[in-house]
């Protein structure tokens, strides 16, 4: 479905992919940050804990995955710019 005034074909893709990248990536970053700051098991966690790296190995691994996906998406974005069109 398309008409000459509004390029709906491009529009819905921008909305959907824009949602995934523009809102999804910061959300993933937030998950990564939360995982990274998880405290080591056995230690009490509290809102006063201000260390970014909490030391939980599972959290650390999860955070690495999250941040890797975010970085990969940025790389993909730059690739799109360079490749043009």
């Amino acid at each position, binding site marked *: 479905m398309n008409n000459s005034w509004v390029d709906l074909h491009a529009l819905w893709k921008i909305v959907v992919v*824009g949602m995934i990248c*523009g809102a999804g990536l910061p959300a993933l970053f937030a998950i990564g940050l939360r995982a990274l700051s998880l405290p080591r098991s056995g230690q009490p966690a509290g809102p006063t804990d201000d260390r970014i790296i909490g030391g939980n190995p599972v959290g650390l691994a999860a955070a690495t995955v999250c941040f890797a996906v975010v970085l990969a998406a940025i790389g993909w974005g730059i690739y799109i710019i360079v490749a043009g069109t």
Partner: protein
Amino acid sequence: MVLVIVVVTALAFDFTNGFHDTGNAMATSIATGALGPRVAVALSGVLNLVGAFLSLSVAATIASGLVDTNLVTLTVVFAGLAGGITWNLLTWFFGIPSSSSHALIGGVVGSTIAASGGHAIKWHGLFAKVIIPAGMSPIIAMVVAATGTWLVYRLSRGVSEQVRSHGFRIGQIGSASMVSLAHGTNDAQKTMGIITLALIANGTIGAGAQAPFWVILSCALAISLGTYMGGWRVIRTLGKGLVEIESPQGMAAESSSAAVILLSSHFGYSLSTTHVATGSILGTGIGKKGAEVRWSVAGRMATAWLVTLPAAGIVGAGAYGLAHGIGGTGGVLVVLAILIGVAVAIYLRSRSTAVSHDNVNAEWTGGVAPPPATPVEPAAAAA
């Protein structure tokens, strides 16, 4: 002679485009303290430079598709640029983030109408490629940013305040850099297109030719230098005026801007980076519970957006009328002199209410310029 004036004027426009739009990428990072004001504009300037070189395939002429290029003369291009520059300077003075692309398009369309009448304008192209996307892009950006902000706050609930703001400041630097890069690829291209159009109109290069390397280089330098100068007035409005921003909101806003700008140019949907950035920042205000959105500031901006095309068009048409009325190189020179006079006048006027890297983050008190009585805190501003 006229060609040289047109090229220099185009570069001047590119420069105003740069400093007008620094805020699109960097306003939120400066407001949250993720980057120092001067570091932010330097980073943005460099990335604009890189961006301008990254993608050359888009070398799209802004005018083709909007006006009948056969009817475009050097004087028309010059008058259009005069309209664009005047509007950019005026909106900068009032701290309104209006679209530089619209200023340019409005100027060129206005001068083309003055020169050859309304039939020289491809109205369908103007609506389908400029006006309708302008209405939709800020809304898309706003929805994406609001969703992103909501998700980010929801997902980082268990994280302490300090960790959160520190972590997201790092994220902000990355996302703001992407916006700067995207801006360089988009907006520098527009001036390259205008200069190429002038060269074609002059017969220097053949129709359909690519932009010569010196055009690419000079445009890239002009836009990055402009970005480095930093349009502090606009940065202030975007970073402090619309919404009080925390670093998670800043990152959500910039991610949304970067995604929407890059995707749109990827799918050939032209839009204004300014409209997207403003929409995103508004969205982060909507997405965070309890955040204050200053709708009056937003309303003032929306009004400016609506009048950008016609206002720049009227200036462009007037500039063409004057240049054509006097005729020849003399006419262009007279308009050039007036343009320089207007630019200097606006600049001098702005000195009395200066906004700089020192006071860009001062408390928002309802106006662009912080009241002079407010003591500037160098520590807070430099942080």
